[in-house]
């Protein structure tokens, strides 16, 4: 059961990350084309800002799944050098559960504004894109991230590492 949850989360994470990668490349390309057309022909892409914002929504809500799946969210791990390894494992599990609880709460909280966007028919200024469509991408992304966050729960907590603080990806 645990293995199948992990496999499902892994596949879902791969799909979501691919979607986020497409959104990122689209963001880059649309901006470059917009700049090129503006400089060369004085005709920028209509709705370039809206395209970037829409891609960013897809990027953020689907890209997050990877860090939740791999337990890569930034933590302050000073306590690791103070407590016994089994206490550290309990704290890691606790942070998994807290993350999942908050993801559920945020996802539920997003439903009302999403339905309001649908009811009021809010649109993007330039493209005229219905904003509820973006809310759907956001909520689906959050649900996916939530399911990916179940992956770590299905796995054993890895053995303690030498204590470092900060972002493992090296972004600071």
């Amino acid at each position, binding site marked *: 059961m645990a293995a199948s949850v992990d496999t499902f989360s892994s596949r879902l994470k791969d799909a979501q*990350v691919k979607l*986020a*990668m497409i959104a*990122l*490349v689209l*963001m*880059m*390309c649309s*901006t*470059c084309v917009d*700049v090129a057309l503006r400089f060369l022909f004085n005709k920028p892409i209509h709705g370039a*800002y809206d395209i*970037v*914002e829409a*891609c*960013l*929504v897809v*990027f*953020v*809500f689907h*890209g*997050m799944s*990877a*860090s939740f799946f*791999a337990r*890569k*969210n*930034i*933590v*302050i*791990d*000073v*306590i*690791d050098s103070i407590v016994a390894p089994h206490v*550290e494992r309990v*704290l890691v599990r*606790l*942070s998994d559960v*807290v*993350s999942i609880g*908050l993801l559920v*709460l*945020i996802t*539920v*909280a*997003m439903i*009302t*504004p999403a339905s309001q966007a649908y009811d009021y028919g809010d649109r993007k200024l330039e493209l005229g894109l219905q904003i509820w469509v*973006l*809310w759907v991408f*956001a909520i689906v992304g*959050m649900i996916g991230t939530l399911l990916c966050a179940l992956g770590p729960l299905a796995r054993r907590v890895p053995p303690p590492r030498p204590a*470092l*603080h*900060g*972002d493992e*990806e*090296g*972004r*600071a």
Partner: protein
Amino acid sequence: MSVQWVGAFGILGLFALLFFRIPVWAALVIAGLVGNTVINGWPAAFATLGTTPFDVANSYPLSVIPLFILMGDVASSTRLSADLFNAARVLLSGVRGGLAVAAIGASACFGAVCGSSIATAATMSRIALPEMRKASYDDGLAAGAIAAGGSIGILVPPSIILVIYGAIAEQSVPKLFAAALLPALILTAAYVFLALLTAHLNPKLAPIGEATTWRDRIAALRQPWQFVLLFTMTIGGIYGGIFSPTEAAALGAFGAIVLGVIGRRLAMAQLLQAVEGAVVTAALLFAIIIGATYFANFVVQTQLPQLLAGAAKSLHLPGLAVMMIIIVAYVAIGCFLEGIGMVLITVPVFLPLVVQYGYDPVWFSIIVVIVVELGLIHPPVGMNLFVIQAQVPDIRLGAIYRGILPFLIAPFVLLALLLLFPQLALWLPKVLYG
């Protein structure tokens, strides 16, 4: 209970959650949720919780973050850093401490296209450290120069921390980038001076290598043309008012890909890896930004910054003393909190206080980045030091700690200069943007 007390307990609760290994984004959301609920009630707190993530993700100015990260990840995959170091190494051959200076200079330049201190330190330790060891440099000096040089990466534009600061402090990113340039140059010069001085005072630490001909040196200048092109296009474009930060970042990322492909240094697999790396890193930052935005919404309502300002004024503390206290607090917090989290948690509290004392938010951004940078290199917890040790495990951490000590003078001197002469940060934004 007054809102100020709610604010104080909220911040204490946040630190308690962080201490117990709750992820930074989650700790910020919990503290914000509890605080907002106490002040406004559950329905309002819950409603804001639902809209904040979408508002953050639907923000055009923040699109600059993943695009600059993509540019940095692609640049890291294309041996740009090796070109920079080799050019500096040849130029400075025959100078005592020249390799250490080359590592610092190359790190500063690479930071300009990479935007990450830790990635710069990791990359340069793979490239420059073996060269310095081959030249019989002292391990401590070599590691110290790389750690210090790497730390410049978050100050020299384009700095991701400055973009995030701009978003939470509602400041123009081009102005912040302009403000960072002169302090970054001063800091680089100070690190170079300290490396040369250390080598001069103890020649055994840095033996002189063989000098190359001037013809070779001039030829070496041509090597890092890709860096010059990328830097001119992105930062030059922003400074010149030609591109917005998002446009510059997109062009920079695209340019880095094109240069990598043309130079046959970027295979499809590497490109896909760089894009995936950028997705993971940027999305992780966005989770924290969402948490911090929600937390900041709570902090603003607590009027805690006004309380702090009132307390400081009732004690008749001058602005300089307040700034000194803030800097000491940042250095202390930097011992256990990573840079971006530190900025996101503290700026909503400290910035209104700083502004009330008449300081410029643009100037304060540079102070914040320098103290974050300090947190990356000061023992015993500086992340750059661990990164170097992870790359070259046979260097003892003690040697790295010893090697970084002389370089710690530079950020403190720069902080003092900025406190005494704020124009060091404010002059260029004024010239460029009025």
